[in-house]
């Protein structure tokens, strides 16, 4: 066995803490080591070339690279080794950067640790076996979960590249939060003018199958072939027959009496409804919690919607439907929820009707909102408006340490819109720090200040009512003095939270989440749209708070990764799976119950267990449990692990 060992300096990232010369000198004398070299950047071209040419000249058969985390560059070095004609699994890495030089200060002890990690890698490398990967066929379809701007953009990009997309949206219409806005910062484009054409494109696209009012129920399988089950709730309206004319809604006995969820209860609708006039698909839905026919089994003599619909589209017998299909890749674009303002009781959101959240105020600006776009709030035109920033953001008391990234700017936008509509209204913004980081944002903020909006640094402490008016108590942290402002309207700049549905999606797809509970990307800088699960990508606010331009950019990125994957007919599956040694297997079937993927099947005739290569994911749980030690876990065999262990002790 000839092992080549390569120690990386990583510039000074490793070499400033670990004495590389010492490591090289020690490792040279370790059994099986034929070559030991060091280099500034092993991952660079010359670094990789060095390994490749040594494999040829010295006839090396195993390679150890001591550098950064294998989670970073194992694929790079596997490719290099394979270029040189060696099996890619004949490589082992020692993590002497993330788990050594970056976390230790004592140079002597860090060097000692690096040496033992490299020895341990050499010991494992000496026992490594070449492995052959199996080819998995790729299903050339994609699933996009969530039909906000991010999901819409990803779906369109993938569909335009010629692949079929299933777009699943929980609500009756796609559009997400953007559909609720009138104008968007910082350019003040009309949200509907830029969003609705995309929504229509989705509906018309021959490659997109749109499943609204639906949720993903189950996902099995893995990259290249996920099997998906979607549950579509009954609308009690035949989608084919409904033309979206709206006769039913006007006729409904409860017309104008049911709070509209889309308007956060600020407007009223019928029991049969479309959330907003530009909804896609423009098909009516019966609210099962409100409709008299559904809740009581009786609506007058006969339901008036049925009478009003000349297409006969109303169908109270409709049941939920299940759709099953296969896809090669998944984009998660489930967006966000607004922070629940009642978690900050001092701002009186629950007590005062003139305390609104940012999203609620958005609806007042909208021409299809509760007041048709007029700033007429609870019957009055506000003469003094106070914005309170960072409600539920940068606030550890409510468990959200992060900045929601859009509130400073949506407050600036809303302050501008108020000034535009009501120039004589006083507008005060109580801010913590102003974060206007995007393109054109600082300029927009300046413009809003020039329009006469008062910005006062320091957050609000309390909102209370006296003589029928709201008062906001705050401290000006620049002047260092407390002050109060009277207001007709208080707007809470509520932050962004992961949607409640994130839990279900996370467990279905085995996705990790960061401490803020948004989905975790595979690498914070280099793989911002990937997840650690192959074939699953992230777009938009599902990954963390962001504005529309960033959501769209990330959605395009996710789509390009999906297309990249779908353009292949086969992908290589890691051969790191469990293997049964049939001679040793006594047929006790202990392993069978442990496998979460049902990869084990008992061969009754021969009395031995078998493992399905395509189903095994390589956790090694069965190998650990096998009482006769007859299951061997490729690349993580007992003897390999123990060899590593003996070297570090």
């Amino acid at each position: 066995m000839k092992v080549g060992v390569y120690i990386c300096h990583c510039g000074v990232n490793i070499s400033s803490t670990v004495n590389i010369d010492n490591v090289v000198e020690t490792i040279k004398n370790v059994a099986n080591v034929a070559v030991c070299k060091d280099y500034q950047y092993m991952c660079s071209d010359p670094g990789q070339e060095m390994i490749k040419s040594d494999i040829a000249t010295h006839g090396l058969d195993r390679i150890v690279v001591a550098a950064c985390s294998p989670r970073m560059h194992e694929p790079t070095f596997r490719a290099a080794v394979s270029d040189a004609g060696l099996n890619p699994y004949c490589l082992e890495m020692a993590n002497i950067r993330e788990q050594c030089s970056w976390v230790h200060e004592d140079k002597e002890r860090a060097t000692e640790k690096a040496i033992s990690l490299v020895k341990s890698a050499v010991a494992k490398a000496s026992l490594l076996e070449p492995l052959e990967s199996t080819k998995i066929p790729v299903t050339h379809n994609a699933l996009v979960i969530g039909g906000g701007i991010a999901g819409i953009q990803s779906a369109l990009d993938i569909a335009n590249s010629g692949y079929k997309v299933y777009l699943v949206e929980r609500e009756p219409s796609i559009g997400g939060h953007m559909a609720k806005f009138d104008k968007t910062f910082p350019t003040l484009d009309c949200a509907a003018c830029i969003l609705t054409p995309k929504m229509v494109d989705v509906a018309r696209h021959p490659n997109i199958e749109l499943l609204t009012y639906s949720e993903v129920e189950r996902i099995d399988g893995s990259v290249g072939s996920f099997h998906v089950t979607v549950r579509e709730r009954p609308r009690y309206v035949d989608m084919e027959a409904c033309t979206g004319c709206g006769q039913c809604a006007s006729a409904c006995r409860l017309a104008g009496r049911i709070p509209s969820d889309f308007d956060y209860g600020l407007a009223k609708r019928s029991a049969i409804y479309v959330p907003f006039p530009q909804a896609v698909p423009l098909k009516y839905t019966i609210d099962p919690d409100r409709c008299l026919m559904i809740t009581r089994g009786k609506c007058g003599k006969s339901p008036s919607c049925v009478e009003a619909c000349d297409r006969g589209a109303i169908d109270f017998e409709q049941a939920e439907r299940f759709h099953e299909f296969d896809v090669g890749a998944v984009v998660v674009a489930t967006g966000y929820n607004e922070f629940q303002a009642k978690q900050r009781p001092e701002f009186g959101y629950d007590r005062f009707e003139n305390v609104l959240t940012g999203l609620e105020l958005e609806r007042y600006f909208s021409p299809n909102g509760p007041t048709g776009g007029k700033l007429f709030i609870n019957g009055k035109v506000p003469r003094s408006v106070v914005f309170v920033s960072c409600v539920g953001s940068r606030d550890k008391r409510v468990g959200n340490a992060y900045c929601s990234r859009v509130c400073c700017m949506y407050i600036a936008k809303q302050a501008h819109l108020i000034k535009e509509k009501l120039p004589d209204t006083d507008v005060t913004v109580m801010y913590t720090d102003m974060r206007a980081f995007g393109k054109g944002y600082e300029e927009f903020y300046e413009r809003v200040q020039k329009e006469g909006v008062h910005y006062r640094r320091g957050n609000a402490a309390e909102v209370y009512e006296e003589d029928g008016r709201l008062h906001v108590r705050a401290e000006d942290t620049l002047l260092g003095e407390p002050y109060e402002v009277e207001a007709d309207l208080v707007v809470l700049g509520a932050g962004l939270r992961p949607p409640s549905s994130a839990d279900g999606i996370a467990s279905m797809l085995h996705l990790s989440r960061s401490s803020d509970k948004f989905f975790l990307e595979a690498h914070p800088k280099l793989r911002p749209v990937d997840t650690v699960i192959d074939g699953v990508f992230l777009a938009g606010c599902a990954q963390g708070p962001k504005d529309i331009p960033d959501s769209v950019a990330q959605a395009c990125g996710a789509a390009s990764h999906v297309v990249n994957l779908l353009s292949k007919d086969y992908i290589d599956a890691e051969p790191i799976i469990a293997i049964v040694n049939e001679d040793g297997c006594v047929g006790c079937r202990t392993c069978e119950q442990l496998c979460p993927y049902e990869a084990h099947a008992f061969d009754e005739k021969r009395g031995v267990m078998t493992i399905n290569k395509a189903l095994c994911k390589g956790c090694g749980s069965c190998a650990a449990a096998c009482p006769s030690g007859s299951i061997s876990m490729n690349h993580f065999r007992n003897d390999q692990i123990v060899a590593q262990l003996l070297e570090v002790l």
Partner: protein
Amino acid sequence: MEKQQWTPKIVGFLCNWCCYAGADMAGTSRMKYPPNIRIIRVMCSSRINAEMILKAFQTGADAVFIGGCHPGDCHYVDGNYRTKKRIDVLKRLLSHMGIDERRLRLEWVSAAEGEKFSQTMQSLTDEIEQMGPNPLHLTGGETYER
């Protein structure tokens, strides 16, 4: 050698998806901790069995650390539940063998919890330093059958 200056030898078996990534995160964020830990990467914490852990104690480990994903987050659905069961049983066995069960520590560390990883390494090292060397200290040498 021990007599000169003893410092705990700790072996860590970390699952690739959460705890190993959390340890990487500690590195990326430059969160310092004592260099006693030697990490061995496995795909899932459930890959580790009793023999490996006992082997570590027999060959001189003063502590063994097992790091997996938080309940519900295991990359392989429920591997970490099996790990928990195995470790609980093994802790009892260790006590019978005269090894303080605190020498075997199981923690759930997510890929984002660099800080938790670094704090855990600090507290584990401190705790073992207080306890002193593993009483079962034999030097191994026998090889392990595949």
